[in-house]
């Protein structure tokens, strides 16, 4: 009797192991396929030009020349700093601005709130290209071309309807009791927003901040509209212009530019992934 149980257990375990192995195999294959282009980008960024011209896929020798040329010939450090200014501003301003406004819609009682909120949400329907040209005309009449203002100042005004929506949903899920208590202790409404509610919104704050990072880091459309001065370029524009439009850069330089653009988003995602995936899920469900 015991033998039979043992036998069954063992075969079950064996089956378990086979399934596990197959599962790992499948996952690894998928991961390889999905990451292959980016792996290749990294590898080709250190591949000598001669090997690329000879039609090699993977490098057999390594050179940092692509990166050297990227930074010496193409001013990427300037572009990086230009981008950084915009990115840092938006990463800080967007979560703060949208949580600030969302607080009004989630926690404060005032007449006309629902109506205003509906108006805010309705802007989601307006495609970017519709407002793009009039905005361009407006900003340039304010003398904002070749300044970071068009890419930063609008963030201060609410930080995007969808973010307000996310914050509002999230704040509604936070129990009122904490705030009531703070109110009793005489905390004013700004403190209730900043010191009580905001710390409880960390997952969504993080999600919005990373979203702000992603959108300002990768955006090349807006900068292309507002910058005519190549010194003011952001990274994405520079990569697009130098490598695509001019089209003369060597392969390793193009790939190095791609790696340089991708490395920061990848790192941020990597270190915050658990929280982010949660946030993305919140976004996916509620969004």
């Amino acid at each position: 009797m015991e033998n039979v149980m043992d036998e069954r257990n063992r075969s079950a375990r064996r089956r378990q192991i086979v399934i596990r192995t197959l599962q790992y195999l499948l996952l690894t294959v998928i991961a390889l396929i999905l990451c292959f282009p980016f792996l290749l980008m990294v590898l080709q960024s250190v591949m000598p030009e001669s090997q690329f011209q000879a039609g090699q896929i993977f490098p057999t020798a390594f050179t940092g020349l692509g990166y050297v040329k990227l930074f010496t010939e193409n001013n990427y450090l300037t572009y990086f700093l230009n981008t950084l200014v915009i990115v840092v501003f938006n990463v800080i301003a967007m979560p703060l601005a949208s949580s600030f406004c969302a607080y009004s819609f989630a926690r404060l009682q005032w007449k006309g709130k629902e109506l205003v909120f509906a108006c805010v949400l309705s802007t989601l329907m307006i495609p970017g290209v519709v407002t793009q040209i009039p905005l361009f005309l407006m900003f340039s009449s304010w003398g904002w071309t070749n300044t970071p203002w068009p890419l930063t100042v609008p963030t201060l005004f609410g930080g995007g309807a969808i973010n307000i929506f996310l914050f509002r949903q999230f704040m509604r899920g936070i129990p009122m009791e904490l705030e009531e208590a703070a109110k009793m202790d005489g905390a004013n409404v700004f403190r209730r927003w900043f010191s009580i509610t905001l710390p409880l919104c960390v997952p969504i704050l993080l999600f919005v901040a990373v979203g702000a990072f992603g959108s300002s880091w990768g955006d090349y459309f807006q900068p292309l509209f507002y910058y005519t001065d190549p010194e003011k370029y952001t990274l994405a524009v520079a990569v697009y212009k130098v490598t695509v439009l001019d089209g003369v850069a060597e392969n390793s330089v193009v790939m190095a530019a791609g790696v340089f653009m991708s490395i920061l988003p990848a790192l941020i995602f990597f270190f915050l992934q658990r929280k982010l995936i949660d946030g993305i899920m919140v976004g996916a469900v509620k969004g």
Partner: protein
Amino acid sequence: MKLFKRMIAVAMGCAFAMCGFAGCGESGEQGGGQGGGQRPVTPGGNTESIVTEVDADITATVVLGYKNENNEDKIAKKLADSFKAKFPNVTVQLAAFTGETSTAIDKLYRSGSMPDVFLTNSFDMLAINAQYEDLLFDLNPYIEQEEKEGKFDRNDYYATWWKLGQENFDGAQFMVPRAADRVVVHYNKAKVKEAEAKTGLEIQKYIKNGWTWDDFNTVCDALKQANMSTYIVDSNMDWEAVYNPILTYFGAEYFDDNGDLAIDSAETKNALDFIKSWVDKGYVAPPDSGRAADFDYGKGFMHFQSRALSTTLDILKTRVYSDLPATTDWSQYYDVVTMPVFADNPLIGVGAAGYCASTTAENPALVWQFMKHIASREGQNAIAEIANYVPVRKDMADYTDPANQWGVGYEKFNLTAFTYNSGNTDEEGNTEPNWNCYTDYFLKKPAKHAVSLNDTFGIYLIESYANGREYDQVMKTLNTRVTQLLRR
């Protein structure tokens, strides 16, 4: 859910409510940041009062805008530095811009950061002038004044390019052309020699300035026979500087005097058949094939291009001949020659790049001095030193003259190809013929369509037919394209 329904209702309501006042607002496009600051240019009748000279030790700043491509930054810097020799206290501030020139200038003007002088080509010049009537600075009063005083002479310059700097190519002088910009054939001499050796045919003797399309065909057939590359020529056939002389030679007309499209004619068909024959005979890759002769990669034999000899040479040096020592006699590997022509009416496509000044400039006389500097020997030498562009001055046509920066280091090349038969006069007073042919059919239409019309004819007439589409089909499509385009 109620919320979302209300959201729609609100959006609709707002839209209709605000529609009213948005419509009453200013007419949208003419916002102009510097609109108020425009100064009317002194009318031509009053030239006596114009002061063209500027105190040599004036302290001032001139903002020079240029498109950020190739080595324009170095050219701008060189021009700025060489201007210092004349006006030591004048700072020429460089302001690079990017994108289509007319769009970029539009942006800069709207935002109130208009440069005093900017680099443009003649098409963008027309487009800018069409958009902002008083923005471009008419140099004619200054030129006339200085001609009277004997300080300037328009006859020093090739008439063709000078004209390309004028309003509608015949009027107010908005632009000082900076180079004699003409299509030439860049050809790979080393490969041609190789082909000669391979086929035993004489090829090189046909390739000379003033050669004809018949010579061109003979050469191409011989090169085909050598079987060294899939295609012979990168033709840029969709470029107006290439197709327009051919269409003009055959007598094709784009628009008639009423402004109606008149392209559908036997003459056009002949011109198209001529261009298509390059594809049929395998000289040129079909435009829609995504393939090319790849001249710049050392594969093709010829390239119809207007760029400077040094630019192409540098490309070939790095891409193709990187193994050869720097001391090589490069003229044995690569050279230029004039575009082939039809013997009975030779025409070669030209265009112009140059500098325009803005009426928003603080000191018009200083701006004029800067423009004059660009067109002077010093200015032309400064440009040639950086980019090897062909001087627009007739007295600088001799590139073997050591004082002429244009030819320094390139004496062994056939640089004459760029200016051959441009209406120059030699020392004995003999004037050579002028083969230059510029594109001006679009002047019958509002100038804002110049660039898009050129693109449209290039793609939907020339390339489309060369790709093997039926003539009637091509005409039908082209008609639709042009009609809708002119409705913008």
